[in-house]
């Protein structure tokens, strides 16, 4: 119920779910079960959240609390993932909050055309994330302690040149590999988006992220897409490919997000 201390959190907008209700025991942000607000052929998936956390001022500080952010992000994704089993939702940015259902309806009214266009673009499709890493061992300089003492200055310089050449070769190989993989995967995608490389500290890896891309792929074409990614296994030593997904179309929620072909599977 909407009381003075509750706000309306909106997860996503989708087409009416028809006979496919959300699972009964699903809980979202703030532990609240998601509900539906329907307006002119569009449905907002919403939940009650406490004003003490989600009004502007508290939210600003909450977002800098990593535990709170993590819990909120996972709860948001839980609802979106459940939606993905029954439809292709248009996800909203984390922590989009309205005062009440009337505000949500006004938003659906004002943004209706944009939502319908986006939902048409996402219909029957999912997002896959593909990342390429240069593994630390392949990119690192050998530790000085591991080297035998150079017999002469000339030996030393020769060895340094060889090391540098090996490193350059690794980076060139990584760039070429990432470009070729991206080209190949783009051919199987309706749209693509390149994200900035991930921060190694956030990603908890010492490997260097050289490609961080998202692909919008038809559900029926996804098996082939995943097989293509799997087939890159063992293709290049020292490089690692990571696949994430399927995601809702987070990276393709605005027309300007997408690059590349429109009318592919």
């Amino acid at each position, binding site marked *: 119920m909407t009381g003075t201390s509750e706000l309306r959190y909106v997860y996503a907008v989708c087409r009416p779910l028809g006979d496919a209700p959300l699972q009964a025991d699903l809980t979202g942000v703030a532990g609240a079960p998601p509900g539906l607000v329907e307006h002119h052929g569009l449905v907002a998936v919403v939940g009650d959240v406490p004003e003490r956390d989600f009004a502007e001022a508290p939210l600003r500080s909450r977002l800098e609390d990593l535990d709170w952010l993590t819990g909120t992000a996972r709860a948001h994704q839980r609802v979106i993932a459940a939606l993905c089993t029954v439809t292709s939702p248009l996800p909203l940015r984390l922590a*989009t909050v309205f005062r009440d259902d009337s505000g949500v309806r006004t938003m659906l009214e004002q*943004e209706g055309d944009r939502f319908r266009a986006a939902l048409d673009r996402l219909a029957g499709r999912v997002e896959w994330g593909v990342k390429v890493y240069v593994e630390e061992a392949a990119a690192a300089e050998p530790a000085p302690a591991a080297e035998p003492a150079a017999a002469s200055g000339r030996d030393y310089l020769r060895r340094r040149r060889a090391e540098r050449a090996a490193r350059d070769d690794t980076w060139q190989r990584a760039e070429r590999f990432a470009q070729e993989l991206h080209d190949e995967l783009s051919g199987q995608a309706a749209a693509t988006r390149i994200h900035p490389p991930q921060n190694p500290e956030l990603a908890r890896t010492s490997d260097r992220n050289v490609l961080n891309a998202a692909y919008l792929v038809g559900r029926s074409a996804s098996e082939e897409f995943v097989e293509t990614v799997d087939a890159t296994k063992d293709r290049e030593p020292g490089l690692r490919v990571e696949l994430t997904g399927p995601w809702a179309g987070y990276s393709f929620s605005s027309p300007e997000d997408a690059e590349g072909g429109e009318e592919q599977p």
Partner: protein
Amino acid sequence: MTVVERREIALVDLLDRLLAGGVVLAGDVTLRIADVDLVRIDLKALISSVNEQVPSPWPELT
């Protein structure tokens, strides 16, 4: 070896989508996370301090 890994969603992948993706709306309350870069910078600072002082929370986040 090039390895294709599939595992539980890492926080960094989740934040890639939830803080940089999704429709940005002018809600009627609302702090819009349009200033994603700002949030991220703060987050990076936060994470550095987490790593220095309390390394333990991290394994469960990946």
